[in-house]
């Protein structure tokens, strides 16, 4: 559940989600669930010309299983906090 909690903290931030089919979408993280499904708002496809069908999509739901990367804002990670949480998770707490 660590990454679920981590992504929950990022709600409201601007992220870029790159999918396994190479489609990259930038948008505001609206919500995330335990499968790491993601909902984005005010989306913009990074390579708009290559994906004309995405032009009028403003909000979208992305299935967690097709995500390759999530690019976060540079200050999106508190290393200390993440380290602590990782150790806690590893201990089974």
């Amino acid at each position, binding site marked *: 559940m660590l990454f679920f909690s981590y992504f929950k903290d990022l709600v409201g931030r601007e992220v870029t989600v790159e999918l396994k089919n190479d489609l990259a979408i930038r948008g505001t993280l609206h919500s995330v669930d335990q499968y790491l499904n993601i909902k984005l708002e005010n989306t913009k496809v990074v390579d708009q010309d290559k994906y004309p069908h995405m032009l009028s999509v403003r909000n979208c739901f*992305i299935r967690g299983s097709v995500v390759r990367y999530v690019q976060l804002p540079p200050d999106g990670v508190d290393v200390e906090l993440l380290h602590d949480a990782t150790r806690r998770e590893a201990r089974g707490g």
Partner: protein
Amino acid sequence: MSWAGPEDIFLSTSLASYLDKKLLVLLRDGRKLLGILRSFDQFANAVLEGACERVIVGDLYCDIPLGLYVIRGENVVLIGELDLEREELPPHMVRVSAAEIKREEFLSSISSMNMRICTTSFTSLKEEFLSSISSMNMRICTTSFTSLKAQKAERDATDLKGSMRKRMEFLDLD
């Protein structure tokens, strides 16, 4: 995707906020389906009413009507809410008939197949060429430059050129 109550469906990842809206569903095989979401579950299985497939080839597109569709969740990549205020496609794109888009699709698949054949042939050709060059060099180096050996190397090179020419003819590059 949790079964959230009516008060927080707009805050959760649930697809409930997309119910009865016109959506674009992107599938894993690259297909694009349009339709109205009537039902869904935690796997992103979905029921689309009045579904149609949008086929896009270059600047041409066509919506092929499909009817009522149940999509198995594992095939879903993305479900997008279509903003009705905005144009669905860029203005330069032209709508054509189903027959026409099928033809275009076929032609573009042929040309991409040709491209693949060409690139693979060229790669193997290049490797063959490089390996024969290096073996030729080896021969030239190990035998002192007698005119006989030089002639043989020249003959080899001519043979190689001939065989490459034959390969190129098969590719029909003209």
